[in-house]
């Protein structure tokens, strides 16, 4: 059967994906530029379509904690927000990571710090990939660069979150949230039944029927035990780093120089690659799809093989560049180029930077 095609905003696509992926609950709070997610969901009457619950919470603090509750009960729960709202969720996220529960968040990033601007930005890279809240944890972070990926990554994020019992973040930005592109929709899957939840997630607080009680907590006052909990969580992260790295390479086979960019920046960099190739510069693009785990090994391999210089292009003052530099490990020059505060770098300026700072230097 031919798949259904629709022209959708990124924010709408992820909402549609949620209904079709058997998500049980969306708890959210409005903030620009992602309010379309909850607007689309409420308009679609998901209670009728799939039985999915949509509730507008009193704050982002409440919504992440509603998710904590639902996730603890083994349900597929998600929220979406934009930078300042995601900051408010950090406490809840830390608890969710500590209690080892799966859930999915969407951050449609806007420029900061503070109230900042509502224009697109990538300045929440550190917050997403390095933990964000207190304690040693990571969010599995996926960065869509198209509306189709906004749709596809929702399901993938839940699968990863559930596999590793860890929150997953879809790190998007205002441009991808607001723009419309063609989306291929897949057939809906139904939500898990209670029996399936009990079977798939024996740890969930579903009521202690035919078993001992389940406790969902991130508290362990005994430091020796708490260290063991941390070691177990870290073991999980090493496995994630080993198995779940995703990236896309654009014209990398013969590349002398490399751009590393994700999300909207990666779209701009595709244009830069074209411009460079027209001028005879062998430029490639590595687009990390997972920001955590980061494709460090791939970058290291590429600079060992033939790449002579790397530019990390970000709509921030330079965050991912730190991971790029760790991967490059001083072998070749690696520099950051970016615009921030809601400004978008131009493909021409990216090329100019490469020529002046890396090739000329």
């Amino acid at each position, binding site marked *: 059967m031919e798949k259904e*095609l629709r*022209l959708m905003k990124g924010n709408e696509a992820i909402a549609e994906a949620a209904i079709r992926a058997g998500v049980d609950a969306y708890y959210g709070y409005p903030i*620009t530029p992602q309010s379309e997610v909850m607007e689309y969901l409420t308009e679609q009457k998901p209670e009728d379509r799939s039985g999915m619950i949509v509730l507008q919470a009193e704050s982002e603090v409440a919504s992440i904690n509603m998710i904590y509750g639902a996730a603890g009960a083994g349900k597929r729960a998600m929220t979406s927000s934009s930078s300042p709202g995601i900051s408010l969720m950090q406490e809840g996220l830390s608890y969710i990571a500590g209690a080892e529960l799966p859930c999915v968040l969407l951050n449609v990033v806007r420029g900061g710090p503070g109230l900042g601007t509502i224009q697109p930005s990538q300045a929440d890279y550190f917050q997403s990939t390095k933990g964000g809240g207190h304690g040693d944890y990571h969010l599995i972070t996926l960065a869509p660069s198209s509306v189709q990926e906004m749709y596809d990554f929702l399901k993938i994020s839940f699968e990863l979150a559930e596999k590793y019992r860890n929150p997953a973040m879809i790190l998007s930005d205002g441009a991808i949230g*607001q*723009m*419309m592109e*063609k989306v291929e929709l897949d057939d809906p899957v139904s939500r898990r039944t209670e029996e399936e939840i009990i079977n798939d997630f024996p740890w969930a607080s579903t009521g202690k029927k035919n078993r001992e009680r389940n406790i969902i907590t991130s508290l362990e006052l005994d430091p020796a035990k708490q260290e063991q909990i941390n070691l177990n969580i870290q073991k999980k992260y090493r496995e994630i780093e080993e198995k779940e790295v995703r990236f896309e390479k654009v014209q990398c086979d013969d590349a002398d120089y490399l751009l590393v960019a994700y999300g909207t920046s990666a779209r*701009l960099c595709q244009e830069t690659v074209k411009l460079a190739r027209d001028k005879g510069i062998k430029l490639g693009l590595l687009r990390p799809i997972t920001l955590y785990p980061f494709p460090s090994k791939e970058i290291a391999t590429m600079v060992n093989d033939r790449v002579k210089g790397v530019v990390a292009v970000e709509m921030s003052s330079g965050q991912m560049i730190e991971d790029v530099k760790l991967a490059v490990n001083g072998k070749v020059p690696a520099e950051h180029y970016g615009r921030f505060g809601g400004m978008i770098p131009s493909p021409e300026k990216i090329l100019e930077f490469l020529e002046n700072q890396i090739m000329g230097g």
Partner: protein
Amino acid sequence: MTEEIIIAGFGGQGVLSMGKILAYSGIMQDQEVSWMPSYGPEMRGGTANVTVIISDERISSPILSTFDTAIILNQQSMDKFEDAVKPGGVLIYDPNGITRHPEREDIEVYQIAAAEEASNMGMNKVFNMVVLGGYLKVKPLVKMDNVIKGLKKSLPERYHHLLPVNEKAIKRGLEIVQEYKKN
């Protein structure tokens, strides 16, 4: 084939929905499309613009600074986007409310009196469809039946009774668009 278009005017003129119909028309003929709006406080009564790309290939950047075609519907947008048309490109504008007409010599310029026409039709709301008709005449990249399909996909079903009047407006646009020659 890749066509990069900016449509710019006041909020409320139907700029965004015109772009949406155009993008949907591209999907109807198996092309890649992107629709990138300006968003934010501008939406509320100020200027609005949308970048639409229709292409046979995967679209790289949805955010552009130069365009093959600019459709300009107020003076602010004229000031902002006339220079953004690529040399040899196309500028289509409604002279209604325009105080400074386009000055570039290296592009094709067309006028469409869409506001006047929509008013004559007694349907100010189909203004954007008249403009779309004008564009389709100048750049017949999407087939008319795909535009009608795109229109149907873009309009919520409760407005489907308005399809004929929209189609009529598009056809009027095809007829009334004309090349603008500076004296």
